[in-house]
């Protein structure tokens, strides 16, 4: 060690200042690379959406004559793939909000039982959740498709809602159990001495104190439901029942796809989750660092 410090003393302060600037400059350059890497596909989306049909099939890097024509077509449902666009947008909202509500309800009830009431064999519930969490949803798609037919839910929004709730709830239980540990048991105990039953404790003490975790998990469930494709695609097939994700992928079926309309649809579809994500980033980050990890 003394050898290195000896060497260091010989060098002039200017050397260190230059070294510092060098490092700073290199990391700025690296930052620029990261920006290009992150933004390019997003930029590509905008470029195509803003271009005319002819402009896409050129060799340009920037839109030649940027215009909002594609967005007008999508918003006014002026193309045959998009005839029911706003209805499908509504379907996506219905699915998203239902999955969020059900996930919060079922997840908080389950973690209340396990964490606060200490149900004997409650570990079975948490193990079940953990198992669901680590089984890829796409692996269960074929049997779930068949089962939904058996249940008579084929082509009905509720089939997607139930399937996605199943895959969102484990994360909810995970986060709620973690967060619940920070709420002192003494609160429950004193409420109980005052004669409150578990339902009252759940509504008056547990839920209000869990608010930050509820926001984090709610956002997660809403994003999961809105962004999911496979189950939407398999379970919903008519234009009346499908969600925006399925309608969007329909563009790929045709050879002479109007890619500018497709990208305009894609951008409109992507905006709500992006806004929601950036809006609730603080809560999401809190939820994620609590130990849960899910993409």
């Amino acid at each position, binding site marked *: 060690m003394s050898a290195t410090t000896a060497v260091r003393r010989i060098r002039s302060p200017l050397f260190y200042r230059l070294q510092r600037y060098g490092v700073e400059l290199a990391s700025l350059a690296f930052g620029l690379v990261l920006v290009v890497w992150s933004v390019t596909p997003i930029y*590509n989306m905008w470029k195509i959406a803003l271009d005319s049909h002819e402009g896409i099939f050129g060799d340009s890097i920037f839109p030649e004559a940027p215009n909002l024509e594609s967005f007008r077509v999508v918003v006014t449902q002026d193309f045959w793939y998009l005839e029911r666009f706003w209805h499908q947008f509504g379907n996506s909202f219905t699915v998203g909000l239902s999955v969020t509500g059900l996930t919060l309800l079922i997840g908080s009830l389950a973690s209340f039982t396990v964490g606060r009431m200490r149900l004997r064999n409650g570990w079975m*519930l948490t193990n*079940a*959740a953990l198992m669901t969490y680590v089984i890829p949803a*796409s692996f269960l798609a074929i049997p779930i498709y068949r089962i939904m037919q058996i249940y008579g839910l084929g082509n009905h929004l509720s089939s997607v809602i139930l399937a996605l709730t*199943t895959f969102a709830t484990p994360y909810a239980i995970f986060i709620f159990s973690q967060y619940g540990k920070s709420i002192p048991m003494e609160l429950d105990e004193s409420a109980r001495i005052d004669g409150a039953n*578990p339902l009252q404790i759940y509504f008056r003490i547990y839920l209000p104190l869990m608010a930050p975790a509820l926001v984090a998990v709610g956002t997660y469930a809403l994003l999961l439901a809105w962004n999911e494709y496979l189950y939407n695609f398999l379970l919903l097939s008519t234009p009346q029942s499908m969600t925006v994700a399925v309608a969007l*992928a329909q563009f790929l079926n045709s050879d002479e796809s109007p890619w500018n309309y497709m990208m305009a649809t894609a951008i409109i579809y992507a905006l709500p989750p992006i806004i929601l994500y950036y809006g609730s980033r603080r809560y999401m980050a809190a939820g994620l660092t609590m130990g849960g990890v899910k*993409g």
Partner: protein
Amino acid sequence: MSVTQQALAVGRGLAATRSRRHVLFGGLHGADYVWAIAFALPYAAIFLAFVIYPIAFGIWMGSDPALYDQLFSDPRYLTAVVNTLLYVGIGVNVKMFLAFMLSGFFIRKRWWIKALMVIFILPWATPALPAYMSIHWFLNGQWGMLNNILYALFAIDGPTYLNEHWSGLAANISAYIWKTLPFWTVILLAGRMAVPQELYEAAAVDGATGLRRFAHVTLPLMANLYLVCTLLDMVFALGDFNATYFVSGGGPAMSTEVLATLGIRYAFTIALPRLGVAAVMSALPLLIPLVILLMRKLRMSEGQL
């Protein structure tokens, strides 16, 4: 890992609370027990109806040994197995390494690093479907932006990336890395931030800087988190459907399919649902050890869950 230590500490505290509670209340009884069961019932119901039943149904669908003969004699299946192994092996490990390095980059305190983080997180905030569709068109050999850029810069005609097996697979893997890199960077960044500053100070007093500080403080404390993240992402990558389906579409000639997309393709394009289930079930020898390892790891680090 400090999170584990925290969890252990919390666990000890809980044990004490629990025994005191037991003395006070004598566990659940009567009406309370009924309430507890009622609260647990909704989750138990959806778990049975949409996890256990499908698993049993799937095992029943894929139980015929003849299916596996049919599967192994299909060259597309064998290609898909190789693709899946490459997808999981390369996609996850390259990304985790990059995420680990990037978390070290993002932990430095500069105003512009915070701003950069907001942009860097964009791929993760964007839904998979539009992002992958955009990448698909971006890589189009004839009119895609990548080749336009190559032409503008170097006046060369780029290859048709998605019309060849290896470049198609590489495109899928890159797209998957692009989409999920920010997420794991944020997770590992949180892990780095949880390393107590005192340890670094102590190391500095002992004269450890740079690489030695990294090797003797950061690395040992992050190893467990890194492992859990890698295992978890392997499971996610194994089940990933969207990148392959939307970037290369499994083409050309189904040569870039992975097991998750091949199963769906068998079941819904060729109308052989049982073969589809068999294709997915053949991933179980890889999936089951991962799941068991993960369940142990996650339970260990979470105390009660």
